[in-house]
């Protein structure tokens, strides 16, 4: 079995929000727990998918494990080394081993630099190779991401979305990383281009032995590329396991809803609502969004949970003393639900 490259334990990231003069002076402000006690690990050359609705903390986790954002508490171990408290200088040599692909296609592409210079810069951040070596590496990079040589003289604004994404990936590959956090790498692209990029990322993983933390809300793509999937809700992982189990035998009601909402959208049958009458209408209406400002006590998902309603609102679900913890239900599949 391959070794663990990243291990995250009880990671927390709380943002404090202070509004107005009074709260500034009194030092009181609201605390938003964007990531609230998350643990997981990645093995070398595997892909872990991180899914959830916007605002659930996916991106914050991605940024925090790379120390682009400092955690409030918890432990991050990269390749056997605790990096939670490392200073900027100490982190610098590690940065080349862990890189991020940002959702924004333009991130990292200086609009005033040609593609050639963008790649040259990336190649010379950590070392000073000879010009001949730089040229040959640039060609290797272009080959890896299937870009034509003719694009080297272009500015980012002259590239299409798919080409920008490829340059962005080439730039990340230039420092030869081992771990890549890919934050919504396809969501800004057209469907036909998305497929190209997904294939490319899989090829690169096979050829270069990369490890991915793949953050996305595109469930079919996550299921396709990931070995394991973690489902997040309101800053916590509510379920984690093998991709096919998460998709087809979910144990947490939220996971079930996430995947079935995909099927709903595609179904051409008469809607649930039309068939289900009053009960379904209530579900349709009460399906709001989660709210950090008024966190539910006990299970965070209870206010939206169909199981909670069907079971007659059991007290354990809203008991502040018993927030459900992740527990193993077999084969490394973990769920945080009292009734899973």
């Amino acid at each position, binding site marked *: 079995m391959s070794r663990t490259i990243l291990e995250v334990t009880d990671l927390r990231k709380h943002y404090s929000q202070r509004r107005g003069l009074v709260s500034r002076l009194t030092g009181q402000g609201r605390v938003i727990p964007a990531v609230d006690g998350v643990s997981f690990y990645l093995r070398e050359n595997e892909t872990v998918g991180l899914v959830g*609705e*916007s605002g659930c903390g996916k991106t914050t986790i991605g940024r925090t494990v790379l120390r682009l954002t400092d955690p409030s508490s918890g432990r991050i171990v990269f390749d056997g080394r605790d990096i939670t408290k490392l200073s900027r200088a100490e982190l610098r040599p590690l940065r080349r081993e862990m890189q991020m692909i940002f959702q924004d296609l333009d991130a990292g592409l200086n609009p005033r630099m040609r593609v050639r210079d963008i790649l040259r810069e990336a190649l010379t951040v950590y070392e000073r190779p000879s010009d001949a070596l730089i040229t040959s590496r640039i060609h290797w990079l272009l080959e890896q991401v299937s870009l034509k040589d003719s694009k080297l003289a272009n500015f980012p*604004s*002259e590239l*299409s*979305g*798919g*080409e920008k994404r490829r340059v962005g990936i080439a730039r990340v590959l230039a420092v030869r990383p081992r771990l890549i956090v890919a934050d919504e790498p396809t969501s800004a692209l*057209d*469907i*036909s*281009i*998305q*497929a*190209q990029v*997904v*294939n490319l990322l*899989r090829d690169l993983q096979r050829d270069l032995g990369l490890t991915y933390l793949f953050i996305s*809300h595109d*469930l*079919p*793509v996550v*299921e*396709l590329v990931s070995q394991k999937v973690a489902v997040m809700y309101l800053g916590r992982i509510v379920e984690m396991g093998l991709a*096919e189990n998460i*998709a087809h035998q979910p144990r947490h009601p939220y996971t079930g*809803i*996430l995947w079935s*909402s*995909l099927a*709903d*959208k*595609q*179904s*051409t049958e008469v*809607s*649930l*609502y*039309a068939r289900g009458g009053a009960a379904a*209408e209530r579900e*349709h*209406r*009460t*399906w*709001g*969004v989660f709210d950090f400002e008024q966190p539910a006590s006990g299970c965070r998902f209870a206010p939206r949970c169909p199981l909670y309603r069907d079971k007659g609102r059991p007290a354990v679900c809203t008991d502040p003393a018993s927030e459900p913890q992740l527990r193993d239900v077999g084969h490394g599949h973990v769920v945080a639900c009292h009734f899973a």
Partner: protein
Amino acid sequence: MDAPLLAIENLRTYFYSRAKRAFIRSVDGVSLGVARGETLGIVGESGSGKSVTALSAAGLVTAGPGVISGRIDLQSNGARRNLLDGLENYARVTEEDGRVMAVEKDERGWRKHSETLMAGVRGKEIAMIFQNPRSALNPYSTIGKQLVETIRLHTSLKGENEARERAIHWLDRVRIDSPRLRFDNFPFGMSGGMCQRAMIAMALSAEPSLLIADEPTTGLDATIQSRIVELLAQLKAETGITTLLISHDISVIQRLSDRIAVMYGGTVVETGRAAEVLAPGAKMRHPYTAALLASIPSAEMIRRKSYLQAIEGEVLDTIEVPRGCRFYGRCNRVTEAIRDNCSGHEPPLGEVAPGHKVRCWLYPTERNA
């Protein structure tokens, strides 16, 4: 059969792109009809011209050197009304070798005439909902106020109180919880899904004859998306409103449309009944439609962890009228027998089955484009 509620004929919309220093033929000869009560779904990638088609129909192409030609006929009160009538007098387009060289446009005259044509149409006869509802709502005014304004402007309910009751009725119909309380909410206090519901309420409260929904679910979370789609399906069943639906998301198009038009490079490449166009394993299908469907991972592909079938290459901006088929460079179904046609002549939109048209040299059809 009745004349379609909306009939678009040979629509062309060009824009000047500063980045490319050229005119882009965003919509390049599109003809479509939307029959009363049906939903026509236009699907395509960015740059295919689907949104510009919708904007043209709503009279929203006014900015800068954007020009429209063709006909857009709307049935209103039993009469046919060409929404582009006389606009051509305000712009002169010079073309050379299929390339738009120059546009001389009387900007003020054009705008004024366009507003005259759209008066009493936009908002009343044709209502629109957009992607990113929050930016389409007025941030300084409550949802209720905005709804009341729409209702008093466009319907016979002129009194403050009756308009208010009507507004609450519409908030309830789009399944907003406690509509009386929400009435006084500002857009910033509401989630994206809720804003989209309010937008839909506002569009429908004018009792329009045509609803244009331009990417109504894009940018929302997956769970919210499916609920908005569900809501649109219910409202369609309840009100029978005629809808022109634009989306890049085939699953949304599939769920809501009676008929579908697939757009590529500014033209319609396939059109027909939704069930036929998207039928699994359909034989007569445009290679682009087939590729688009194949690039979405199916359950089978995921299970086998197989590669996605990507469409090679990129969507190109249409600056010149291409000699051959617009999809030629990316098509994987070109055979030696038809290669000369594919590279040299644009295929006509030919009927391959009753009501089902495909723009491709693969299928022998009568020349009826």
